[in-house]
C-alpha cells in the first residue's frame, strides 16, 4: 500500500484496462451521448461522480455489512449473493442524488442530459466497476477501491470525450455512403480501442 500502487491502479484502470475500450462496458452511452463534446463531457463527469460514490459505498457494504454478518453466522461469503441487488440499489440511489443535485445547482446541465441521466442507473460500466472492485485483490483497501472507481470513471470520461471530438469532425467529412451513421462510429470506436492497446505495459 504505497503511493506507487495507487498510481498503478489509477493508470491501469483509466488507460490500460479502459472500461470502454478493453472491458466493452458502457458502450450504450459511449455511442449514444457522444455527438457533442460538451454533452459527452457532462455525461462523463456524471458517470465519474456516480461511479466513484457507488464504488466507495458498495465497498463499504461488502466489507462493512455483508462480510461481518457472514462471519457472525460462521461463513464469510454467506450473504455475497446479495451483492448484485444491493449494488444496483446503491447505484440507483446515487443517480437519484446526482439528479436532484444537478436540478438544484445546474439546471442547464440537467435539461441538457434529459433522459440520459436516469439511464446511468442501468449503465453496465458502473455495476461492472463495483463488481471488479469486489473481485480484485489490490482493491481490498478502501482508498485503493476509491481510486480504482475514480480511475474507471476518468477512463470513461476520456473515452467518450475523445469519441465526441472525433464524431464532431466526422459530421463534416466525406464518409462513404455504406459507412455513414452507425457504421463509421463503430469503426472509429474499434480503431480507438486498438490505439488504447498501446498503453499496455504502463505501470509495470
Amino acid at each position, binding site marked *: 500500500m504505497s503511493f506507487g500502487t495507487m498510481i498503478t491502479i489509477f493508470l491501469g484502470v483509466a488507460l490500460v484496462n479502459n472500461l470502454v475500450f478493453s472491458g466493452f462496458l458502457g458502450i450504450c452511452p459511449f455511442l449514444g451521448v457522444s455527438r457533442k463534446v460538451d454533452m459527452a463531457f457532462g455525461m462523463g463527469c456524471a458517470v465519474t461522480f456516480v461511479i466513484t460514490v457507488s464504488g466507495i459505498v458498495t465497498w463499504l*457494504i461488502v466489507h462493512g*455489512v*455483508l462480510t461481518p*454478518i457472514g462471519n457472525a*453466522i460462521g461463513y464469510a461469503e*454467506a*450473504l455475497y*449473493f*446479495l451483492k448484485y*441487488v*444491493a449494488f444496483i*440499489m*446503491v447505484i440507483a*440511489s446515487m443517480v*437519484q*442524488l446526482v439528479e*436532484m*443535485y444537478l*436540478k*438544484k445547482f445546474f*439546471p442547464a446541465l440537467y*435539461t441538457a442530459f434529459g433522459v440520459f441521466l436516469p439511464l446511468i442507473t442501468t449503465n453496465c460500466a458502473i455495476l461492472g466497476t463495483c463488481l471488479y472492485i469486489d473481485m480484485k485483490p489490490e482493491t481490498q483497501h478502501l482508498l485503493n477501491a476509491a481510486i480504482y472507481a475514480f480511475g474507471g470513471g476518468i477512463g470513461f470520461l476520456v473515452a467518450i470525450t475523445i469519441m465526441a471530438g472525433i464524431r464532431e469532425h466526422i459530421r463534416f467529412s466525406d464518409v462513404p455512403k455504406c459507412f455513414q451513421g452507425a457504421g463509421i462510429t463503430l469503426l472509429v470506436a474499434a480503431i480507438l480501442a486498438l490505439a488504447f492497446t498501446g498503453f499496455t505495459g504502463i505501470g509495470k
Partner: protein
Amino acid sequence: MTVLLAAVVLFGLVLVFAGLLGVAKEKLKVDEDPRIGEITEVLPSANCGGCGYAGCADFAKAVVEGKAECDGCPVGGAKTAEEVAKILGVEVVKTAPIRPVIHCGAKNHEKLGRVPYEGVETCTEAHIIGVTQACTYGCLGFADCVAACNFDALRMEDGLPIVDYAKCTGCGACAKACPRDIIENIPFKQERMLVVACSNKEPVKLVKQACTVGCLGCGLCQRLFDDLFEVKSNLARLDYEKYTGEEDLNPLFKKCPTEVFVYFGTPKPQRAKQLAKEAEAVAASN
C-alpha cells in the same frame, strides 16, 4: 436462516438509502414558481417550438420570467393567451393571429420551362439541383411544407400548397421547411388577406419566360397606393403593418398587368382580379 438474514440485511440497507434520499429531497428541493406549472397546463403541449422556445414548459418559464409575451404561443392563439394572462394577472393585448401565406401563385400549367424531374422528390433536393422549372424563386411543388406540418393543415393542389386556415395554428414549421422562403407568416387581421403571390426578383423579361402570373415589378401598385406597396428588386411587397384588409383596392386590380394579387384565407385562395371582375359584373347586373 440465511434467507431470513438476507431479507433483514437488505431491508436495513433499503431503509438507510430511503432515509438518505428523503433527506436529500428536502435539502435539494427546487423552489419553482408554481405559476410555471399552471401555465404549462393551459398550453397546448404540442412542444412544436413555434414560440421560439424549446417546448411548452420552457415557454411557460420564459413567460413567468417576463422574457416572453402572454400571446407568444402561436398554436394556442387568443384563448391560451387569455388563460396565461389570467394566471399572471395581466391584461392581454388583442393581436391578430399569425398565419402563413404563400408568395407564389403559379399553378402547374402557369409555371413555364418545366422539365421532367426524376430526383429525390423533396423541395430541398430539387432546389439544390435547380433545373425542374424556369422560375428559381417559385414553388417547386414537392410538398416539403406539407410534410413539415404537424397539424394536417396543408395540402398540395395543382402544384401549390393550400393552407387550411381552420386547422392551421401558425406554428411556422412550413415557413422553416420551405427551401425557397416563399412562405411568410403574416398577421391575419381579416378573414381574407391580400398577398403578392410571387417571389421572383428577376426583371420583366425573365419573369415572363418563367411564369404567366409573376410580378413584373412595373411599380403600378406603388404609384396607386404609395403607403401600402413597395416595389424593390423587381418585386412588389405589401406592408402588412399598414394594410388592414379594409382598403378599397379595386382600381389596383384593374390596372395590374398580371394576376399576381391573390386573396388568402377562408374559404380558399382566389385571384383578386377575378374577384374584382365578378363583383363588378354583379354590380352591373343590378
